[in-house]
C-alpha cells in the first residue's frame, strides 16, 4: 500500500475533462514532482486532493484510508498541507498571526501556537518580519509565508503549488534549499513547478501530464528524455 495514491482520478468541468484517469503513487519521504504545460490540470489535481471540489470518479488514499469527499479542513486535519499558486496571505494579519492561525490546527493555547509559529518562521527564515502585515510582503516573502503556513499545520504530506514562480534566481536557490530542508524533516512533498532546473534538482520521481492525462512517469532523467514530454512542451518537429 502506497503512502499516498490516486486511482483513475477523473474530473470533468461540464464538457472539459481537466483530469483524466490519473493514477499515481507517492512513497513516504519522497519529493514527487507534477509537471505539465499550462492548463494541463496540475492545480486541479491539488484541488481534488484537498477537497475544494469533488472528483467525477476515481479514488484517493492517504495512509491506507480514503480521503474522497472530505471537506478541505478535514483533509488538513488528517495531515495534508498545501500552498496556493496565487498566494493567499491573510492580508490584514501580521506574518506571525498568519502562521499562528495555522499552528492552532494542532495546538490549542495561544502560547503553544505562538511557539510553533516562531519555530516555523525561524525555519523558513522569516523571523525578521514577524510583525510585518502580510499585505506588505514582497512576492518572495509571500511564497515563503505560504510554505510557513502550510508547515505550521504540522502536516505529513505537503502540496506545493508553484512556490518558485516569479522569484529571482537567487530566491529560487534559497527556495530549493528550503524545500530540501522540509524533506529532511521527514515530510513527504508533492510539488507542482514549471521551472525545470528546480524540479530536476529536487524530485525523486516525476509525473508529467498533458490535457489531464499521464504522458510520462519516472525519474527526472527518464522524464527529461521522454519524447512525449519534449513534444508536449516544445511541439513536434
Amino acid at each position, binding site marked *: 500500500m502506497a503512502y499516498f495514491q490516486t486511482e483513475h482520478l477523473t474530473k470533468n468541468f461540464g464538457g472539459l475533462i481537466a483530469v483524466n484517469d490519473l493514477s499515481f503513487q507517492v512513497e513516504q519521504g519522497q519529493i514527487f514532482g507534477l509537471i505539465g504545460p499550462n492548463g494541463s490540470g496540475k492545480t486541479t489535481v491539488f484541488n481534488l486532493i484537498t477537497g475544494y471540489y469533488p472528483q467525477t470518479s476515481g479514488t484517493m488514499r492517504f495512509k491506507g484510508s480514503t480521503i474522497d469527499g472530505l471537506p*478541505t*479542513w478535514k483533509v*488538513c486535519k488528517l495531515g495534508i*498541507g498545501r500552498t*496556493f499558486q496565487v498566494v493567499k496571505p*491573510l492580508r*490584514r*494579519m501580521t506574518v506571525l498571526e498568519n502562521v499562528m492561525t495555522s499552528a492552532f490546527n494542532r495546538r490549542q*493555547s495561544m502560547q503553544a501556537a505562538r511557539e510553533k509559529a516562531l519555530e516555523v518562521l525561524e525555519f523558513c527564515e522569516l523571523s525578521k518580519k514577524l510583525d510585518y502585515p502580510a499585505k506588505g510582503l514582497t512576492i518572495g516573502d509571500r511564497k515563503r509565508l505560504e510554505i510557513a503556513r502550510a508547515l505550521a499545520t504540522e502536516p505529513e504530506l505537503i502540496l506545493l503549488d508553484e512556490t518558485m514562480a516569479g522569484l529571482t534566481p537567487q530566491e529560487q536557490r534559497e527556495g530549493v534549499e528550503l524545500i530540501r530542508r522540509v524533506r529532511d524533516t521527514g515530510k513527504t512533498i508533492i510539488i507542482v513547478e514549471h521551472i525545470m532546473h528546480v524540479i530536476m534538482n529536487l524530485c525523486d520521481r516525476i509525473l508529467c501530464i498533458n490535457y489531464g492525462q499521464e504522458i510520462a512517469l519516472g525519474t527526472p532523467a527518464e522524464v527529461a528524455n521522454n519524447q512525449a514530454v519534449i513534444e508536449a512542451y516544445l511541439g513536434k518537429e
Partner: protein
Amino acid sequence: MRINRWVLLGIVLFFLAFPVLVPSDYYRHIFIIALMWVLIGSSWNLLAGFTGQVSFGHAIFFGTGAYTAGLCVTKLGISAWWGILLGGPVSTLVGLFIGWVCFRLRGPYFALATIAVGEIFRLVAIDWRSFTEGMEGILIIQTFRSKLPYYYLGVALAALCMFAIHRVVYSKWGYYFVAIREDQDAAESMGISAFRYKSLSLMISSFFTGLAGAFYMNYMAFIDPHVVFNLHDISIMAILVGIIGGVGTIWGPPVGAFIMVFLQETFRSSFFGLFPRWVSESHVLAFGLLVIFVIRYLANGVIGDWPKIRRLWTREKAYS
C-alpha cells in the same frame, strides 16, 4: 488595540460613579440606552468586523430576546427578569438556525439573506397575534421606578459582553474568525471549518444581542414588532455603531454606541430645544452625512483611525 490597564480602571470607575455625579434621570436614561447599544454594536462587530459576515438582520436577535422576556410574562406568567437568563440562549438557538440556512451564502449574498430573514421575523411577529399579541405589543409593569438598578445592570451586562468579546478575540477562535474574514479558502486549507466557526461567531453575537433585547423589555416595559424587529432603528443602527466606532476593533463599537445614541438624542430633542421641532425629523439625514464623513475621512472608524485623529490634534497644537 490593546488598552492600558489604568485607562480601563478609569473607564470602569467613571461608569460606576456617573449616576452619583449626575443625579439626572434624563442623562441616566441616555446612558442606559447607550450601554444597551454597546452590547448590540459589539455583537454585530464580532460577526461582521472580525469574522467578515456582514449582518443586516441583528434586529432578529434583539427582537427575539425582547419577545422572550415579554412572553415570559404573557404566556408563562413569570417575571420578565427570566428573560435576562433566557433571552440570550433563545436568540443563540435562532442564530444557530439562521447560520445553518444563510452560511451557505458568501459575502453580499449572506447580507441580503439576513435582511430577508429579518423582515420575515418582523412580519411573523405582527401577524401571529395569538402568540405575540401582534401590533398591540406587550406591556409589562416596570419592577423599579428608579433608573439606578437598570443603569447598574446595563453597566454589568456591557462589561460582561466586552470581557467575553475580548477573551474570544485574543484566543484561537479570534484568530480563526479573522482568518475567515481575510480569505475563507485559505482558512479552510489551514484546517479551519469555515461553517463551524462562522456559526460560533454568530452564536456569540446573537447571544449578547438577545440579552440586550431582554434588557430592553425589562427597562422600557413595552415592545411591539415595529420597535424591536425594526430594520433601520435596530439592524442598520447596529451597523452604524460599528462603522462609526471602528469595524474590527474591540473598543470601536462601545465608542460608536455612545456617539450614535447622543447624536440621536440631540436630534430627537431638536438640539435640546434650541432649534425648531422640524430639526428632530432630520436625524436620519444627519446619520447619513456622518457616515459619509466617516467613510471618507476615517474609514476605520474613530477607534481604528485613532492614531490619525491624535496626529491631527498634536500637529495643530505644534503650530499654535
